[in-house]
């Protein structure tokens, strides 16, 4: 029985990793299509991101003369770290092989190390654009990461664990109810997710060669399969954040261990539905808002940090009563 369970967990883990890899470009494509429709354009077809990635994979890599080993290994490191982080988040079932290591703090650490290498690679060749992008990315990170950790602390105080599958179990058991702190944490996490994925008020994902860009500036020197890996990692990160928000705040539909195939199917369908809903909301939000000046990032992310701090304070108070 134990062996069967372990085998099943392994299978689910592989299925989840393959699923995320397959869905990630589709989600980005869906957001682009909805945004284009909202603006009255027809927009690119849904499969355009897949085609882009395939085309980039076929092209040759052009390296700068002074590019070091760091520049060449970073795309692989970044992609692996983000794929692994995405594999930790329970999407359709909590019975995953990596459940024991699926810790929120490990997730943040994986994301942070991916960002660290990307920022180093941005500065490696020594172009001014790369350095500019790296410095902006790190500025965003210094503000977004504490906010994210505060959100995690709020959830951890409430659930008394940082393990993602235990959080899902606890939320599904209904022992939480409506909580002010959770609402504050949700808003804060949404703001962090927008900043981390370089979506509109912080960074415009549709721009190329503009003075205000952040992520694009950092990866400007990349080409060929390296660029394909970095782009795929960016798309994976979007899926990861949506899956994370869905798994902490809307865990309904996720199958528990020992569930039959029907529950697993329900889990898969609800996960895809959640991603579609997330894509629609994100596209609507991005269409309705203008990009922020670089000097106002601090206020936006400072707001996220304060909200999460406020949530933690309220939680501290209401658990003390």
């Amino acid at each position, binding site marked *: 029985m134990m062996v069967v369970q372990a085998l099943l967990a392994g299978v689910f883990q592989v299925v989840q990793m393959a699923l995320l890899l397959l869905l990630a470009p589709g989600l980005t494509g869906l957001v682009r299509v909805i945004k284009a429709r909202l603006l009255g354009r027809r927009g690119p077809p849904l499969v355009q991101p897949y085609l882009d990635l395939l085309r980039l994979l076929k092209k040759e890599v052009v390296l700068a003369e002074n590019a070091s080993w760091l520049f060449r290994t970073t795309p692989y490191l970044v992609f692996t770290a983000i794929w692994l982080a995405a594999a930790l988040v329970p999407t359709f079932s909590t019975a995953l092989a990596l459940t024991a290591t699926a810790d929120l703090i490990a997730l943040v650490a994986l994301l942070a190390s991916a960002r660290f290498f990307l920022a180093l690679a941005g500065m490696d060749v020594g172009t001014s654009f790369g350095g500019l992008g790296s410095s902006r990315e790190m500025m965003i990170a210094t503000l977004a990461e504490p906010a994210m950790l505060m959100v995690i602390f709020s959830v951890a105080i409430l659930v008394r664990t940082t393990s993602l599958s235990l959080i899902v179990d606890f939320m599904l058991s209904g022992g939480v*109810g409506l909580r002010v702190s959770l609402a504050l944490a949700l808003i804060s996490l949404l703001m962090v997710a927008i900043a981390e994925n370089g979506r509109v008020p912080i960074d415009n994902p549709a721009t190329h060669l503009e003075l205000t860009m952040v992520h694009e500036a950092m990866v400007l020197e990349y080409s060929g399969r390296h660029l394909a890996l970095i782009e795929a990692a960016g798309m994976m990160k979007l899926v990861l954040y949506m899956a994370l928000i869905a798994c902490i705040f809307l865990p309904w539909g996720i199958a528990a261990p020992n569930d039959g195939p029907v529950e697993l199917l329900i889990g898969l369908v609800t996960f895809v539905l959640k991603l579609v809903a997330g894509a629609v909301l994100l596209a609507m939000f991005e269409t309705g808002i203008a990009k922020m000046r670089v000097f106002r990032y601090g206020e936006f992310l400072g707001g996220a940090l304060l909200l999460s701090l*406020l949530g933690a304070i309220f939680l501290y108070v209401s658990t003390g*009563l």
Partner: protein
Amino acid sequence: MPSIHYDIAHLLGALVLLLSFALLYQRRLFALIKMFAIQSAALGAAAAWQGYIQDAPHLYVTAVLALGMKAVVIPVALHRIIVKLNIARTIDTALGVGPTMIAGVSLVTLSILLVLPVTSDVTALTREDLALALSVVLLGLLTMITRRNAIGQVVGFMSLENGLILAAVGVQGMPLIVEMLVAFAVMVAFIIFGIFFFHIRERFDTLDLHDLDSFRGESR
């Protein structure tokens, strides 16, 4: 189900508090007034919910007052004053947004630390509601301090009064007459403010109160 009652009341109170932070964050006059209107609407919802769970019909009157007066009449009036006086639409803040927000969170912490030990013998709902209400009052004061523009200060004052009403509806057995008196006092204050706007504007050609200092003989 008493727990869901408690949760929703708590959530609405927190929404009012959150909108107080949004007031602190705004830089444009029209956005500031819109935020104030939303805050008043949230206050109306909180009052109506309290009326429902406490089974106190007079709280519905408070809710309607908050909704009609403060979410519609006063914002529209302020809007018209701004258009009529043709004043600058951006707000000069006396303090940057970052320090203001930090001060705001410290004030919330202070009010929680202050309210909880004092009210140890009442229900949890009342205690948290009082802590939220006191935070809204203090944040209203902070909004008044950090705005140099007279309209910004009035909005801060009104949001302070929102905090007072939030406290009043959270406590059981607050008579309607007291709430009515508070509401009308604020109404009178608003009218007086309105008259002052016109006078200040006529005399000094601005609503930036910072410019008044030199007329008082205080050097810049």
